[in-house]
């Protein structure tokens, strides 16, 4: 069974303790100036956004079928069965296709470094595989970020929407987006207000490229036979022409006879 995070923005108080815990977990610096930054970057893997009296977290969605892992040529990004989408910097060659491909534009790059790596929330894979919660869920004082089984969290999110008519937008963000994600969001205001894309496909995106790629094993032998066949015919024609004693090849105007 795969683990997930449920973030209920109506319970969040914007204390940003999750930001601090995330920075500590990933050994990144955290201070007042980092706290005031309102977007994800190579040194801030999760951010609590404030719009009026509403809050919203941004973090890697850890998709069920992630584009980033599908596009990575060297398999540096991987979806684990337990939930997290992990990153192995030692494999990465820095092509940055993951950053282009991510529908949520989550992966960030260490532009300032000479030997940069990709940075993104990886859902605390070491903690999760050891049976612990993610750092952000553990620290959360109100339970706005909750860690658990994905199925159970979905049921709970549905229950919360059902029990509190009018409180929530009737939408669990991440339930169906790009085939489902390991981060589920509840909100009182439309998710687009916080930069979450609204028109995202319900189908996993990797199928779009794989549909084309999967033809290659068929195409290679077929192409080889067709091209070889054309070569055979065109050269056989020349041999026959030679044997029949007519002039092969080109005439004065460069045209074939």
């Amino acid at each position, binding site marked *: 069974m795969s683990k997930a995070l449920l973030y209920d923005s109506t319970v969040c108080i914007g204390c940003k303790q999750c930001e601090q815990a995330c920075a500590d977990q990933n050994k990144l610096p955290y201070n007042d100036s980092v706290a005031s930054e309102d977007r994800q970057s190579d040194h801030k893997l999760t951010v609590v956004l404030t719009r009026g009296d509403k809050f919203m977290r941004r973090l890697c969605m850890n998709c069920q079928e992630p584009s980033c892992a599908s596009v990575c040529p060297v398999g540096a990004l991987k979806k684990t069965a337990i939930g997290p989408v992990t990153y192995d910097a030692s494999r990465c060659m820095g092509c940055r296709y993951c950053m282009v491909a991510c529908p949520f534009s989550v992966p960030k790059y260490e532009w300032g470094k000479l030997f940069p790596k990709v940075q993104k929330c990886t859902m605390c894979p070491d903690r999760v595989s050891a049976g612990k919660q993610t750092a952000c869920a553990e620290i959360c004082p109100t339970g706005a970020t909750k860690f658990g089984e994905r199925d159970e969290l979905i049921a709970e999110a549905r229950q919360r929407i059902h029990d509190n008519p009018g409180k929530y937008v009737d939408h669990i963000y991440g339930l169906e987006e790009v085939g489902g994600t390991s981060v589920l969001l509840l909100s009182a205001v439309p998710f687009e207000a916080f930069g979450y894309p609204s028109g995202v496909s319900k189908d996993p995106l990797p199928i779009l490229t794989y549909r084309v*790629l999967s033809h290659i094993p068929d*195409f290679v032998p077929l*192409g080889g036979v067709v091209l*070889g066949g*054309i070569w055979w015919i065109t050269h056989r024609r020349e041999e026959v022409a030679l044997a029949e004693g007519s002039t092969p090849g*080109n005439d004065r105007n460069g045209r074939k006879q």
Partner: protein
Amino acid sequence: MSSLKTIRFTFWKFIFLLLMAAGLYATFVRFSQGLGASTHLSDQFPWGIWISFDVLCGVMLAAGGFTLTATVHIFNIKRMHSIIRPTILTAFLGYVLVCVALMYDLGKPYNIWHPLIMRNPHSVMFEVAYCVMLYTTVLALEFSPIVLERFNLQKPLKVVRAILIPLVICGVILSTLHQSSLGTLYLIVPEKLHPFWYSPLLPVFFFLSAIAVGLAMTIFESSMSSKHFGLQLELPVLQELGRVLVVVLGIYGILRFEDLANRGVLRLAFHRGYETPLFWLEVLLAIFLPLILLLQPRVRNSPTGLYWAAVLVVLGFITNRMNVSITGFEGSTGVRYFPKWTELAVTGMIIAGGFALFGLAVKYLPIFPKEHLAQEPVAELKDEVPEALPALEHAGD
């Protein structure tokens, strides 16, 4: 006349040295301070001109290699044989320069070999990496007879000639795969790429336009060579390429507009927007203007007409690749990208290097048929220094 020639020569030499100096300094900045200091790339815009121009356009501009080897060796159209060597040279240099550009763009270039052992067959980038690697090897082998002939190495020459046909077939298959795959790369971003350029047919468009540009580049490069190296222009061959180009452009144009209409995007082309002028610039340069020119026999059969139509096609599809990879993303990312001087300097250096290497190869290797090389310079010299002729006879050996 001769003084004018020296001035022109030194002028281009000056430009070349200037580009090299700027490029080398930019190289120093790139490899001492990293991508952040040397580019205008950002988390919102992770791919810039090094991918758009140096890689996407570079691979496209080198497409003449597979187009022409297929024509000559597979379809056995022998009259094209005279232009095959310069075309293979262009393609080989093109792919080598693409690999050089990748070393600048990759965050960790020393890991460029990783796809060899760390495989993800679901990744288009993995497939492109493999195809480019293998095809560069194929091109090196297709190019090798030119070098082997120069040094009269008969044994390896025999081996390469024996495997030439399978080699050409491999080259055509590999090119078909990665030329189209550069379009497939963008299939995974349906929400991020502007609908003018996002299409399920992207792989088909990239492949067809690569053939068109391959033909156009062959015309362009033959015209340039005849001008600068005093060669006889292979007009009948170029006219034939021009006719094929009309057909390819026609197919591409019809598919492109059918696709826009089917996806209901065509009306967007008549709305004011940031992308609209760039879309029209692209289709005018790549499709309409060259088609209008080439459909007139008078233009299609003249060296100047062919030359300018080819230039338009090349510029048009460069615009297309830039639109797909830069313009098309500016709307969804909300960021305008313009390359930093260091990015332009590296690209400039790579282009200048390509021209210089082409010139050197023509000078020292048997790229053009000997009888063609001899004709014009000798005719020119005849009036001035007739006694030099016997010495020149063996100049090319």
